[in-house]
């Protein structure tokens, strides 16, 4: 089920209530059961896939642990042992990545092979089955794999309790859209019994409310305009395209970060502490900085399990850039099985490679011009340039194809028409003036909150120190605003209520 559904609204309080009422021994089992129920809200059959992946990684953990002991014993005897732990980790990786490949990339590969076949005058291949992408597969497979690799590396001890491990993989708040947790952080939290703490719960609920605000007030509202402009881009030019591009940057951030915040918040209500996933990415001063702030759980996953094993930056500059490109192309592919995602990833990698290559020249230039790099204005300029670069890449992310993205840029520069911002053109995008006002005000709130956070203020802690009436007022108004201005529910056109229709 989705967080923004009436099901979740009933599901979550029930889960929380039962969780704290049940004896401590049963709580993990309860979480496991409800997590599977949560997942089966999409497609019950794919719960088997989740179970399978969980089983394989659990088993590989056990085998690695067992084999390592044996190897160590042999090595102590001075014998050369077959590297079984490595074997098991490779098998686990292969099985899990095959699952991911089959369910996520099979269609993509077939499509590309067919393009090749058709272009070379041969008949295209038609698969005998259709693959439906299981929800969240990229998330939980990565999470499960991180456990296998951590066990192999010895960063985490082997988990012997299958149910506890299964709960770690399927933990419902972060199951389908992250953060991708590490066994080192989350797994151990199932050991410590959680006691209900009101201030923790309140903070969790506050974060959830903020997440809902980002998701259903901003992201889903911005999506209406973004979809209109991107889907029917042939009819929009210049500033209209620009509006679409800017709003997509807002949409993708609020959508993703909002969902993460709901996840982190709901885990917090249950007493769990999940990692931060978005750290105000649009305040980044460089593309590299952006990637330290954007989808942190994924970036660090790639860093720890791909970039560093590839050699990271320890094998020379060229190799470092090569590794960077590999990581970002893979990241692109992880986000979606289509070439435009690969290009998006590649572009982000390229920015950083270029950033690295040009760094000495940039340094020389700033020195020569006596630019004061510690000023607000300089930081602002860097932030703006970074945002522009990121937003250009987003067009590839959102467009339906590479050529679509190119045509978006052509339309962007086809006309200089700032008057469309004033002459009512923006009201022809399925969006009324009221909607625009709500959206712009909401984005202002987002900006203000982000700026305060960026200045080092911990908002929820600061709020807790305020007078009670203020805390209440802010919370109540916030929740009401989300309820009223959120995009959710069956959304009837008021014309639908006219009774003259039979």
């Amino acid at each position, binding site marked *: 089920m989705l967080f923004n559904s009436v099901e979740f609204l009933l599901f979550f309080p029930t889960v929380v209530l039962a969780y704290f009422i049940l004896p401590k021994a049963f709580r993990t089992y309860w979480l496991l059961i409800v997590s599977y129920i949560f997942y089966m809200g999409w497609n019950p059959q794919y719960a088997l896939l989740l179970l399978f992946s969980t089983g394989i990684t659990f088993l590989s953990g056990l085998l690695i642990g067992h084999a390592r002991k044996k190897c160590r014993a042999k090595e102590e005897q001075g014998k050369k042992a077959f590297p079984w732990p490595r074997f098991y980790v490779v098998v686990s990786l292969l099985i899990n990545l095959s699952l991911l490949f089959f369910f996520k990339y099979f269609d993509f590969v077939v499509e590309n092979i067919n393009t090749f076949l058709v272009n070379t005058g041969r008949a295209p291949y038609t698969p005998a089955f259709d693959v439906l992408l299981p929800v969240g597969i990229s998330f939980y497979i990565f999470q499960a794999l991180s456990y296998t690799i951590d066990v192999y590396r010895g960063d985490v001890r082997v988990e012997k309790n299958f149910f506890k491990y299964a709960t770690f993989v399927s933990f419902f708040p972060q199951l389908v859209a992250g953060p991708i947790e590490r066994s080192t952080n989350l797994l151990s939290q199932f050991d410590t019994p959680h006691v209900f703490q009101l201030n923790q719960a309140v903070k969790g609920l506050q974060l959830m409310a903020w997440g809902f605000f980002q998701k259903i007030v901003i992201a889903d509202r911005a999506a209406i305009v973004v979809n209109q402009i991107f889907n029917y881009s042939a*009819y929009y030019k210049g500033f209209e395209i620009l509006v679409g591009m800017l709003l997509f940057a807002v949409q993708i951030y609020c959508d993703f970060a909002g969902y993460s915040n709901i996840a982190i918040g709901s885990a917090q209500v249950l007493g769990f502490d999940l990692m931060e996933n978005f750290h105000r990415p649009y305040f980044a001063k460089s593309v590299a900085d952006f990637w330290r702030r954007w989808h942190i759980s994924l970036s660090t996953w790639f860093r720890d399990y791909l970039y560093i094993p590839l050699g990271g930056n320890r094998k020379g500059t060229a190799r470092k850039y090569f590794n960077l490109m590999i990581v970002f192309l893979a990241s692109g592919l992880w986000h*979606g099985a289509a070439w435009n995602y690969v290009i998006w990833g590649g572009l982000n990698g390229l920015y950083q490679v270029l950033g690295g290559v040009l760094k000495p020249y940039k340094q020389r230039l700033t020195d020569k011009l006596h630019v004061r790099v510690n000023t607000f204005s300089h930081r602002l300029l860097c932030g703006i340039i970074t945002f522009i670069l990121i937003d250009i890449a987003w067009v590839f992310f959102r467009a339906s194809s590479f050529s679509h993205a190119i045509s978006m840029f052509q339309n962007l520069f086809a006309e200089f028409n700032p008057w469309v911002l004033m002459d009512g053109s923006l009201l022809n995008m399925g969006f009324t003036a009221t909607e625009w006002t709500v959206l712009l005000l909401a984005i202002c709130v987002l900006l203000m909150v982000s700026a305060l956070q960026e200045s080092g203020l911990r908002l929820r802690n600061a709020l807790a120190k305020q007078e009670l009436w203020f805390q209440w007022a802010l919370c109540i108004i916030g929740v009401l605003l989300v309820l*009223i*201005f959120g995009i959710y*529910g*069956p959304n009837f056109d*008021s*014309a639908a209520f006219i*009774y003259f*229709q039979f």
Partner: protein
Amino acid sequence: MKKLLGVVGFLCVFLLLYSYANSALHIKTEDGIEPMRNYYALPENTVDVLMVGSSHMGRNISPKLLWQNEGIAGYNLWSGMQPIWNSYYFVKEGLKTQKPKVVVIDIFLCGVTAEYSDSAAALKNVQAVNASLDQVNAARASFRTWQEAAEALWGMPTYHNRYNELTENDFYYYTDGISTDVQDILSVPSNNFQASLLDYASITDELPLTEKSETYLRKTINLCKSQGIPLLLIVAPYQATAEECMRLNTAERIAREEGVDFVNYLKEYQAAGIDPLSDFYDIGHLNNNGIPKLTAHLGAYLKAHYELPDRRRDAAHIWYNQNVTVATQNTPSYALERQFQGDGITRSVDTGIRPLENRYGSWTLLARLDMKTYGDNEVYFSCFSEQADAGNYGLLARKSGDHVIDLKLGANISTTFIAENDTVDLAIVKNSQTYDLYVDGICIFLGRELPCNPYEGNLLIGCQELSPDGEKFRYSRTRTLNFEFYEDQIFSAEQIAAWSPDELPETPLPLGFFGDEQQEIYTLREQFVGGGWEYLQESFIDTGVQLYDESANRFTIIARILPNTLGSDNVYFSCFSEEPDHYRGLLVRQTQENRIDLLLGSNYSVQVPCVPGQSMLLVIEKDVSVYTVYADGVKVIDGIDTLCDPYEGNLLIGCQEDADGEKFRFSQTCVMGLQVLSGVVEDEQAAQLTLEDAPMPEKRVGSTVQYEMSDPYLGDTVGRYLDTGVKLYDVSDKAWTLIVELNADSINRSDAYFSCFSERVGQYRGLLLRSNTDNSFTLFLGVETVTIPADQERQKMRFVIVKDGAHYRVYLNGKAIATLESECAPYDGTLLIGCQETAEGEKFRFSPVKIDAFSVQDGALEPEKAQKESEIREQNQRF
């Protein structure tokens, strides 16, 4: 403890503010929500008759009229599209606060088989009810899924987006907006819909109710029984289908078995005086003619069958002393819309007004008359008794010489005056039995006593009549430029002097009149080859010539036709009214191999022998009412006199027109030449008239079909569309495959997605996808249609439409949804995206539709491939 108090306190404040926001945002409709809200506010023992049901109850029965006429304290607790399960909960809710003496329910929706109403209607029906276990049960009965029911009960998800449209009223709706007055039916549309009701009384068969309907019908009956309140079930008159009527028969039987009263107005609407032609404004709702009739009948029934006190005299009743006011009008009771130009043969105007019905009546008549008429003793207007036994009296204006008018008023008293100009303004004011007369604003006499007996006849322009409703005579060639009649109004001299009406449009003279002889009215440009779809020609030709718009038209038709062996009812040409019992005009057709049939004037039938394959030259002359016909130079009909009433239709070649103006009987006949001339000629000349054959029409060549839309299409309502340039129907038996993917996120309107469709009345054909206001789609294929029902969930729709000759296959989202045969005539229009084209080639119905992909190509895609092609391909974009 302190913490707990804090949480409780917080929740209380939150709920308080939430409920305020909720009440402002709540949907507010004049059905369902408003009747229920006001009902809750009524004091105890106010309602004697509780009326529940759909709009058929709420829009057809007026509580105000029940109150005014019968003193019945009735309340209409209705909601649009209310099925019986919602009626059940409305009754249950209604009985919580009032103790009515009878409950009346309209159960027309028991006649349909839908298990659920559309979401918006269901929502009103559920949200009107106050929060209670009954509301929960009502929601469960009204929605398919528990999620929808939960959202409806919570409310906020369904109406929070109303923040866009909040008005002052929304914030006071549940406080100051409440009304406890007698209910009235507001904003009844003034139009008149001619309902075509079946003979429901003769339908006695039964069809079962749906299980759900029957369950709730019985629950409702038991509920009223358990409360000891009599129940009356009704079905207000509407345009029901036979199946609906049969299901309602079952409901009636159940009611009778249970001892419940039932009045089925489908079968008894005549008893209530309802006229299907004048009393409806749409297929299910009465207009201001019908509402009083039905309400009066139901009121009388209620009075007769239940003990209902007259509450008008009950000073303790909340509605005591509530009454009505009637507005007055100040416009003419009658005004001529076009100038009247008499032809001396059939032309006249019946105003429908009876100025002398009441001898003491008062009125003002204003007329502007043209003095240049063609003869003497011609009538301008009349309301004049010519009965032998009663004598001559009344009102009569005639011409009695050059610029001389003779006006008769009262008991045949004549006033004669001479008009100075070519037009004259005449004003007659009747005040009880005295008259004022003004000519060109100058008073001729004032207050002259001219008493006479009442006369029932109508005021006529351009003729007289022998007796009321009797034969008209003395059709005149007078010309009346303006004519206004004001009932119950007495104009002063100033008002009359100030009268300067706008000039009315002229009425042209009949064809071929007054020396307008032998003008060419129409000549066929190319031969008509009926059914010859290989030719570049429509399946009929509308000449645009009205031969019978005036009874007195005089014309000559010269036509060369080619009789064939293709069976009966083949029309060569027609200008013929198919109005039942009033057939008239001209019709030339072949009913047998060796015989051409002519229908002339008032359906006068004559036959002319013919030889198939051998052309025949027909000359048809009409001299007002006298017809002469020559076949190949031989006079076959000699001066038959058959006068007929005017008919507005055009001369059509190759088809006929029915009474509703729809073309029909498209015929495979051949007309090689045809000419219409005004007036008639002498006998010898007529016999020698000839006509050259028109050239043959061009042959059709099918174009290739190949189009792929490069970018997704986004329509607007102003004028955007795409013309693909592709002709899908330029030859009839083309084979093509069309693939289209729609984004149907807001289709609550009548939009055209794509069209290659002839809008010619009676010849609708081609390809068209339209959305309807109820969210469904209609796909026109050739001459057939496929309805694709509403589906709230659906947003992306991928159609594959395959045409192979006359065979169509349609696939939608991976499923085959229709296969059908549909042969149609060629159509030369191109395939348009986002609009349609009128018969005249003008683009219209520009639609704000979203089409994500669109392609069409030659050749019919095989079934399996087509089905596969219609599957929606979601891009794997989720992480």
